[in-house]
């Protein structure tokens, strides 16, 4: 009996009225874990019951502790008929199993019902006592920490990175089990929620076991997805990176970002050292795609399945392996390094890493994006305990990825992720990552301390450009590419363009700012069944992949950039169409050559007049010039000339001069200089091509004051202020025209995405200057004629004037866009005061309750931030005092007094009237950090799955009203769980799944949402050593009021 789970039901509030006669509710609570159930007494006739129950104790195996959620059901007692369920709360107790995470779960949880949504709240206390010795694990893996964050968590140090862990579990979907009988929505929704919760727990436990086997203690970059395969069942699968993490003592600042690579110092030397090798490979630009035989049957499956994969040609490399091209002194060491890495990695079946950013020195070279897709026909999962078929499918894909990486001269894949798209019985499995070479230090046993650099194996390349250097042999390149010497160190070869799925390494040197680049594609497909359908889809995939890639490349060039980070290509399948969406963040890497322009050429000169071509050419050139200005891309080429790094080939020299001349204004010159040699040529051979070019130019740049990217942070911006607004937006577009062309579809799809972005800019305009980070688009084809786009992102404010001080103090209270900052930290004074100034006084100005107070308020020192909090508290205390004395009804003629004291006392009273409880402010972000704050504790993973259904769609405001409230409810439940764990923020938040189905004729709709993230406690960066308890009190101003009273 290795664990004791204890739960206590304290109280409820805002319960719904269950008894129409009395307008009240006789509520009681059932607490269930595994097969044991306890009940509280009935608290009669109240909407705010106080149960204050005893401690319910469950004695359970730790295996169950990991798998099972604690189920709290609130019911209305009914003497004569069956008790009515009000709603449920599932509490994942995993965070309590880890000594370093949360120790108690305590707080108000929304009571959730799949039909009615949130119906009041319940206050629950949960504790766990583990009394086994932690070495005796067999089936359980308590103690393994899980992180959604795809980098080494901020307050840990990676002693060792073990590598890839994966697992999947399958089960029958209760929805489909029951659908033939009379389905009661609530029962099947709840069964599904519970099942997925159980499966997630089991999956996490199994992954934990694998981690323990590998000798690790944590999973970083944990990515869990579920596939609703319909009749064939339900698959929950997860991948992650096993690590051994050491907690940094709070004394040492855990700011991994600022840690400099131990070998940064020699960087300047490296730059000056002359490069002797000057061989140039004058290869044309192009793409290589490996194309497996499009049809072959999968291992054990009786049915035919389609397999197709493509490795996206991306053009990146270093002198690695190309012995001759590397400086002599580095050669042997490199070989050694390579061998080391290889052995370290080859012990693993899949040298994959789900991380997207790395400790300094970890990533040596990047080879390019590798991806694989496979089309499968789903078959009923006959035996849930043996999910071999699904395992085998993924195994195949991973092998493919591995071999692609090898072809790029790389032995590891980083930024690795997997996804699926399902339509009826067809399923596209996709995997992608970035082929790369890693420093073996982090993977070797016995060399746990990264602090002590192992100099023998140090890479001589400077960290700011080393990762760009090609990892493969330039004489034996995997695909045609144009290599030049690194523009940063001049020593090793770099490709002309670099595509990756990872975040921009923090040490990389970048010119100008980055921007979001999207390629969008829609392709019609005939409706078909079974194998015919699968074959059709797999035949279309390579073309889609190719077109998306071409679009990306064009758009990249149009912005005068040379590298893509965070590339994510999603291909969704529907009954009659395929959707492709590629998102990435474009940047200009200083180490890579300047991109050539785009040259338009008519293939058949007779077709189109030269005038037409030159107009288009001019527009393109203008756009490039505009973009250069917009993203501040002014490569410091002159400087390099001055440094005089020797570039022996005249061709290089001339090239440099040419690009230099680009920055001059002569447009006609520019055309010529782009020449055929290094400009990207677009051929216009038919009207389609013209359309394509037009669509290229459609993408509007973000309005001034806005930037956008899909990576963790915007390259070129590092002065974040504390304004953070995370949001989720969903749009569904109905295609009414049955006879759409590919072209028409493309336009609709592109407009849909562009309009979404425009909406974001508009809604968040009060946050300017601001950057939309981690823009994560998910597309789906939920039905015929429907396109669904879901976006989750975060808007963060930054200081435009980088030299200016006190960025955080500037309240952004213009219009509607109150940032969470005001919520989180006690900055209300300053915010309110500014607002008071901007408001017409007649509206909100109140009369102070006593002149004593108002003079007090007037004396507040607005200038000093440090004093603000305490002054404010003092003010509150005074205020509270006044109220207690009851001297409130007094004179009323100080017309121009500030509304401030009023507002305060108001919120004060509001909290008091409900017994001092208040809502903790919880920030959410898809990033791994919150600007201006420091994460001091990770409390555990949040992984929640909800279903919501309605049979009164119109009454709930139609589909938009329904989904709007559901998403708001999901946010609320995530925040409540985080707050109950003692946290004040969620980092690495993501919405994995948003499946929306409607039947307006029946007035019904259903939606499934899966979200995940890491619950954390963070403190202001300026606070020296705040304890968690201090943090909590600093978090919500209402809790401050409590202490003040």
């Amino acid at each position, binding site marked *: 009996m290795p664990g004791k789970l204890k739960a206590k039901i304290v109280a409820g509030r805002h319960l719904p009225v269950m008894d129409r006669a009395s307008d009240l509710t006789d509520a009681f609570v059932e607490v269930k874990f595994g097969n044991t159930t306890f009940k509280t007494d009935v608290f009669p006739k109240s909407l705010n019951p106080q149960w204050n129950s005893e401690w319910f104790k469950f004695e359970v195996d730790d295996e169950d502790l990991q798998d099972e959620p604690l189920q709290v059901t609130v019911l209305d007692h009914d003497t004569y008929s069956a008790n009515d369920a009000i709603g449920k709360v599932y509490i994942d107790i995993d965070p309590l199993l880890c000594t370093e995470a949360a120790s108690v779960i305590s707080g108000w949880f929304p009571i959730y019902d799949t039909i009615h949504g949130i119906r009041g709240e319940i206050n629950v206390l949960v504790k766990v006592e583990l009394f086994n010795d932690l070495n005796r694990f067999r089936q359980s893996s308590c103690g393994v920490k899980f992180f959604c964050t795809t980098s080494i968590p901020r307050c840990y140090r990676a002693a060792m990175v073990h590598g890839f862990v994966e697992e999947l579990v399958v089960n029958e979907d209760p929805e489909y089990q029951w659908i033939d009988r009379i389905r009661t929505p609530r029962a099947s929704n709840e069964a599904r929620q519970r099942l997925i919760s159980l499966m997630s727990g089991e999956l996490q436990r199994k992954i934990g076991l694998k981690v323990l086997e590998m000798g690790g203690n944590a999973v970083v970059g944990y990515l869990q997805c579920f596939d609703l395969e319909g009749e064939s069942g339900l698959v929950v699968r997860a991948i992650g990176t096993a690590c051994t993490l050491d907690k940094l003592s709070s004394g040492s600042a855990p700011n991994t970002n600022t840690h400099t690579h131990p070998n940064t110092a020699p960087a300047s030397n490296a730059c000056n050292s002359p490069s002797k090798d000057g061989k140039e490979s004058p290869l044309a630009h192009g793409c290589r795609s490996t194309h497996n035989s499009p049809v072959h049957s999968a291992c054990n499956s009786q049915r035919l399945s389609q397999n197709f994969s493509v490795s996206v040609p991306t053009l990146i490399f270093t002198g690695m392996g190309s012995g001759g091209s590397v400086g002599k002194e580095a050669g042997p060491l490199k070989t050694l390094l390579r061998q080391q890495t290889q052995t370290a990695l080859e012990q693993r079946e899949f040298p994959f890493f789900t991380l997207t950013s790395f400790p300094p020195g970890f990533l040596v070279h990047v080879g390019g994006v590798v991806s694989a897709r496979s089309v499968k026909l789903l078959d009923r999962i006959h035996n849930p305990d043996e999910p071999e078929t699904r395992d085998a499918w993924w195994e195949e894909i991973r092998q493919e990825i591995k071999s692609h990486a090898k072809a790029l001269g790389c032995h590891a894949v980083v930024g690795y992720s997997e996804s699926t798209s399902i339509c009826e019985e067809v399923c596209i499995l996709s995997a992608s990552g970035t082929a790369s070479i890693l420093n073996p230090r982090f993977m070797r046993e016995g060399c746990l301390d990264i602090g002590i650099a192992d100099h023998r194996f140090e890479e001589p390349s400077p960290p700011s450009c080393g990762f760009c250097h090609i990892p493969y042999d330039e004489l034996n390149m995997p695909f045609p590419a144009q290599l030049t010497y690194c523009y940063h160190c001049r020593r090793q070869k770099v490709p002309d363009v670099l595509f990756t799925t990872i975040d921009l390494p923090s040490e990389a040197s970048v010119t100008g700012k980055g921007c979001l680049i999207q390629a969008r594609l829609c392709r019609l497909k005939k409706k078909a069944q079974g194998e015919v359908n699968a074959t059709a889809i797999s035949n279309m995939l390579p073309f889609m992949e190719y077109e998306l890639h071409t679009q990306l490349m064009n758009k990249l060039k149009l912005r005068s950039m040379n590298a893509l980070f965070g590339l994510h290509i999603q291909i969704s399948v529907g009954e009659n169409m395929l959707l492709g969406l590629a998102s990435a963040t474009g940047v200009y890497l200083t180490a890579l050559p300047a991109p050539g322009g785009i040259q338009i050429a008519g293939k058949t000169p007779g077709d189109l007049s030269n005038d037409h071509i030159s107009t288009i050419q001019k527009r393109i050139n203008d756009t490039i010039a505009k973009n250069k200005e917009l993203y501040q891309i002014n490569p410091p080429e002159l400087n390099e000339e001055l440094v005089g790094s020797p570039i022996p080939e005249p061709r290089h020299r001339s090239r440099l001069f040419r690009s230099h001349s680009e920055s001059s204004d002569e447009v006609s010159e520019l055309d010529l200089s782009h020449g055929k040699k290094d400009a990207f040529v677009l051929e216009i051979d038919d009207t389609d091509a013209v359309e394509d070019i037009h669509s290229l130019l459609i993408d509007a740049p973000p309005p001034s004051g806005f930037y956008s990217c899909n990576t963790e942070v915007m390259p070129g911006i590092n002065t974040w202020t504390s304004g953070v607004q995370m949001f989720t937006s969903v749009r569904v577009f109905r295609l009414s025209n049955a006879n759409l062309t590919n072209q028409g579809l493309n336009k609709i799809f592109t407009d849909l995405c562009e309009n979404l972005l425009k909406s974001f800019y508009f809604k968040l305009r009060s946050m300017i200057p601001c950057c939309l980070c981690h823009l994560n688009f998910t597309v789906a084809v939920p039905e015929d004629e429907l396109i669904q786009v879901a976006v989750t992102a975060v808007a963060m404010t930054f200081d435009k004037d980088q030299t200016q001080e006190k960025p955080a103090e500037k309240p952004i209270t213009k219009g509607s866009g109150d940032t969470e900052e005001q*919520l989180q930290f006690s900055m209300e004074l300053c915010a309110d005061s500014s607002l008071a100034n901007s408001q017409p006084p007649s509206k909100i100005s109140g009369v102070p309750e006593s002149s004593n107070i108002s003079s007090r308020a007037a004396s507040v020192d607005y200038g000093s931030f440090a004093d603000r909090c305490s002054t404010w508290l003092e003010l509150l205390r005074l205020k509270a005092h006044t109220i207690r004395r009851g001297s409130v009804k007094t004179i009323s003629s100080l017309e121009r007094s500030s509304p401030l004291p009023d507002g305060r006392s108001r919120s004060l009273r509001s909290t008091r009237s409900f017994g001092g409880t208040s809502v903790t402010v919880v920030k959410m972000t898809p990033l791994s950090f919150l600007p201006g704050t420091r994460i001091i504790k990770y409390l555990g993973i949040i992984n929640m799955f909800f279903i919501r259904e309605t049979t009164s769609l119109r009454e709930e405001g139609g589909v938009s009203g329904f989904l709007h409230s559901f998403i708001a409810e999901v946010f609320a439940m995530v925040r409540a769980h985080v707050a109950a764990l003692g946290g004040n923020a969620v980092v690495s938040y993501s919405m994995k799944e948003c499946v929306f189905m409607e039947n307006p004729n029946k007035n019904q709709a259903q939606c499934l949402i899966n979200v995940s993230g890491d619950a954390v406690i963070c403190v202001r960066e300026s606070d020296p050593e705040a304890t968690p308890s201090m943090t909590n009190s600093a978090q919500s101003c209402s809790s401050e009021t409590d202490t003040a009273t």
Partner: protein
Amino acid sequence: MAVELDVFVGNTTIMDEEVYKLWLDGYTVNDAVKVRMEGGVMEECEASADVLLSDTMDQYRTFQMCERLLHSPAKLANQLLFQITPHRQAVLIERYYAFDDAFVREVLGKKLSKGTKKDLDDISAKTSVTLKSCRRQFDNFKRVFKVVEELKGPLVENIRQHFLLSDKLGRDYAAIVFFANNRFETGKRKLQYLTFQDFAFCAGQLINNWTVGAVDHMVEDMDVDLDKEFLQELKELKILITDKDLLDQHKSLVCTALRGKTKAFNEMEANFKNLSRGLVNIAAKLTNTKDVRDFFIDLVEKFIEPCRSDRWTAADMRLYLTHYTNSAHILDTFKHQVVWDRYMGVIKSCIFKMYHD
């Protein structure tokens, strides 16, 4: 081809104050979009009409979802569904409970019943406040009325605590509740010139001085009902006009004090008996509910109108009433000083407020 579903949900609920105002004012989504377009928001952020429409719909939906909470504002502070800054919560509540002076003037003193609610479309047509907005304002009045009806303690404070309103708005609501409860007549043509703020001020005076609460702090309805004992005692003041000697004495005292201080002296002297009779008669009749209702109309008819026709200035009015009140203290045979002060204090300030030059 149409956007079938379009939602945007922020972790911190995003609310545009301009759109909130349009929503409160009862604009339809399309009208609101038009207003916003004319307001020039589009240029601000290179937005298109579609963007504006989508944003407006989102905001309207958010407000509709919040409306339930705004009906009991205390819930807004500890609900979990929307993360709203305390400051913004306060703004939301304050604006939701704000009302149009034109509208409230029509409803003031009427019974907050279904009957009145049926007349809202007439009021809407008359005041050009949208029917939707009229309904919200009316429901707000009614809601506040119902809640404070059953509470003990000071009226303004109760309203502020339960609805988390500012002091100013709390007092306005107290006035509305007070007027509705006592059914003061405010709609007569003669009273049309008075603004809501004039009445609200008077209500404040009455609440603070003439209600039960002015004497005892912990009674039910203490601020809503007038002090019955006091109203009885007011009958005693009749002696000032029924006793001829007292009346003459009073007149001569006032006239002595006023002589040479105002241009309107002759009129004051000539009208003294009439005016004094008017004021004292009002006092004596207040025991009848019917006459309480006519309190303001009586004040206007019996005092303000005669003075106005004699072209008194506001300063004249002050001067006259001050001496009129104070001189009564010097009358040896007049024994009701306390009641007189309690009565005249309120009458004085009400008349000051109601006497527009």
